[in-house]
């Protein structure tokens, strides 16, 4: 399947209670937040498709930190739309600091 995909990169900050969540947990939290935000999601292929995301590096457990996350969508959405819709769905301690591209 050659579905079109659209990328948006953002910097996400992990703080407060969210510092106790691992990198794997973070993927899960973002996936569910994106689903709740009803954005046009792009999924991985295979038997158990997941919402596609990629991270620049893994954040350490237990400390505050920032990292770059790449979001993939099946339709072209504006960075503003992502920021507005996702913000409402993120738990306390996860913040979108800025959109890169």
């Amino acid at each position, binding site marked *: 399947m050659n579905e079109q995909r659209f990328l948006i990169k953002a910097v996400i900050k992990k703080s407060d209670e*969210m510092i*106790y*969540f691992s990198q794997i*947990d973070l993927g*899960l939290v973002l996936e*569910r937040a994106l689903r*709740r935000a009803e954005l046009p999601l792009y999924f991985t292929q295979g038997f158990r498709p997941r*919402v596609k995301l990629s991270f620049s590096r893994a954040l350490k457990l*237990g400390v505050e930190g920032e990292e770059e996350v790449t979001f993939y969508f099946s339709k072209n959405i504006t960075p503003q739309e992502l920021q507005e819709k996702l913000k409402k769905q993120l*738990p306390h301690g996860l913040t979108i600091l800025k959109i890169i591209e």
Partner: protein
Amino acid sequence: MIDFKLFQHPQRYIGNEWNVIKKSHNKRIPICLCYPDSYEIGMSNLGLRIIYSLLNDSDDIVCERAFFPGEDFNNFLLNNNQKLFSLETKTPLANFEVLGFNFNYELNFVNFLYILSLAKIPLFSRARKDLIVLGGGIANPESLADFVDVFYIGEFEAGTASFIEVLRKYKDKKSRLEALCEIEGFYVPAFYSAELKNDKYEFNKIYSYAKLPVKRTYVSNLDKSHYPLKWLTPHTAIVHDRVPIEIARGCPNRCTFCQARAMYYPYREKKAETVCRIIREIYKNSGYENFSLLSLSSSDYSQIEELIDILFAEFKQKRIGLALPSLRADDILGKLYSKLHLLRKTSLTVAIESANDSLRNHIGKKIDIKKLFETARLIRTFNLKHIKLYFMIGFKEETEEDLRAIGLFLEKLNQETHLSLNVSINVFVPKPFSLREDATMAEKDTLLDKINIVKNGLPKRRSINISISPVEKSILEAIISRADRKFSSVILDVSKASCNNRNAAGNWLIWQEAMSKNHIDCAAYLKAETINFPWSFINTGLPECNLKKHE
């Protein structure tokens, strides 16, 4: 503030799940639901979620949660002289007005007492001044009668409103318990005496307004009953990491060893339309990527085909997984065949119980094995990882041939499906309220012999994984589930032992020691009886229960 990164799985203690409910305690009645097992297991329990959401629906109630802590967190509390607290507002459990405990698994009874002691709350009901300990999910409450102030016998959704009413109206423990015992489903053990006289249990009221027999209650309209739509969504993986959507409660079948059919009697369904509405709402609120349809026997659900069609169409686009546990083997071939490969399901579960037709009939299990083999070729097309199979042994009428048949059956199934088989062999435990509550539990040596016969007949193939439930653990489950009030001293001793040894509750020798110290003859609990049990004061509402009472 505690530094949670000191602990393994710090997520267990944070209480910041999506949709968590945090209210101030000011002018509210605080209730804490405590689960006597780990966070990951407790959060997979639907009952806990229903009651959490239902209680919090009342503005003047604040309901929070606590779980059995991990070893490191437990040591931290002990070393720092801190008391166990709730997840949401980190309030010590002793500061709640009510603690609700789920007692659906006997071996967790010890954890219950341990939680109380970790919270520095007196263990005995009579020693507690104001705090009320409420117990639910239990079949036979007698072994905990000294520790629990009031049990709810049946489905708590049916009693929640009256429970809240009583808490609002009365403020001290005595008047609260007196008011509760007049309401159907609430059982206050201190208001009854239960004595064994000439081998017969005699139940009497001590408080004249208490009800006898105690009637089990249930939700009459499952379709309209409360469902936790604001699904508490952990930011981490839990044991069954999918949202269970209850499509039916109870079971129309009559497997004789089964306790669940009595605990969830009668059989009720939610309409497919309601199920879909609930799923849509929960998806919107949680973003969960996996759902499962929950019932004791999904094949019996009258709108199953329709429901799968609707859900599959909706889920495909959004890549939501749907699992359908508890299927009957014959349905794979029949009406559900065309639907099944629509599901993203990696295993198939068949509770077959016995490989022998006549024994299966005897224990009431309706499965057509011939059909299962006819299905074998179809099963191969399903893209399954493996098949899970459940067997049960330890019945009186079972022969050596029956036991050997298990191995032959597995070999044949493995050959015909080319799939790996995960096989659980469980020991029959005559649980209260099952149709065989009056059966004698097989003795340890007999069971070990039977297991050996099964083992010798098993094919040696790498693709067949067998797990056999430990005999001593099953006997222990039988003893605790069938025990009377005297047994509380044993549970107390084992819970004390678990302060130094976290695995005490699973250690047969520790139980045995506690039983002999307290002069408990466990064989008495396990011998065949007719109608005279420690739990005979409860009326489940099942037809056979009413029959017996009139005999």
